[in-house]
């Protein structure tokens, strides 16, 4: 795994940012704004939203596997034991401490 600063670690509660989507965006729209828990740190990769346009995509961005409860993702779902796990780049994640609504400027 590349030696870059990783902002989050397994077990951290996070929220997917509600920010303007890049032209080539790997963060699914159905997860934007949703809270989840970091399952694992998967490494750091070149930015796909830049790679898609033949840019180097550097510096690399940390990538995390994040688990979302079905209850937290879909309106009208409650008491579901099920979940969705997705891979989210760090510039799409915020700490889920409630103080930040996702209108972030970082990344």
């Amino acid at each position: 795994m590349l030696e870059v600063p990783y902002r989050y670690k397994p077990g951290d509660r996070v929220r997917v940012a509600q920010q303007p989507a890049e032209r080539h965006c790997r963060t699914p729209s159905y997860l934007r704004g949703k809270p989840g828990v970091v399952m694992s740190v998967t490494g750091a990769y070149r930015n796909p939203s830049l790679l898609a346009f033949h840019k180097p995509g550097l510096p690399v961005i940390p990538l995390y596997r994040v688990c979302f409860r079905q209850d937290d993702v879909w309106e009208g779902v409650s008491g579901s034991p099920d979940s969705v796990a997705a891979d989210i780049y760090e510039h799409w994640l915020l700490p889920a401490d409630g103080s930040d609504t996702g209108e972030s400027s970082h990344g």
Partner: protein
Amino acid sequence: MGDHHHHDHDHDHAPIEEVAAAPIEDRILETAIRELLIEKGVISAEDVHRQIDIVDSRNPALGARVVARAWTDPDFKERLLAHPLKTIQDTFGMDMTTPLELVVLENTPEVHNVVVCTLCSCYPRMLLGIPPAWYKAVDYRSRVVREPRAVLAEFGVTLPDAQEVRVSDSTADLRFLVLPARPEGTEGWSEEALAAIVTRDCMIGTGLPDPAVKRDEAA
């Protein structure tokens, strides 16, 4: 990387079905670009066909061998879960050179894993070959993250309420292979016999290995 529909809207409950091939415009564009690249000497027609051969040589039998070995060799399973591609390459001699990472998702009594790519059609091609048409279809991609149990039921898979269904959405640089649980009734089976019941769907998570159904019959 295909189209990038996002499906927030309501959806019907049509069954997961086959879809048509790429739109005619896309095929014309592909042909035009390929012919130009060959004409300009960037790639050769031989390169194109060699790559097609490689893609065609991959099929679910590769993944099934890996699963069967994991069922019979606990040490292999441990290494597979820790370092999937390296372990597969070292053990089976398959060339697993790819810029992508593979994650093996082990099904347990607590968690049943299902794989999708809601953005396009990312798939563990290095082990399973070309994805089935339904995997690329909007129906499957939009519904399995929203109502996984209803979709699984259409595949004939019903799971206990207490078992979490975890849908892994292949959104980035990782590809996922489901390691199903070894079914009861297969005690003492050879690795070859075990591999024959590991269907493609078992490794996507939309199927469960059935000792009575062999892979080639299910395909």
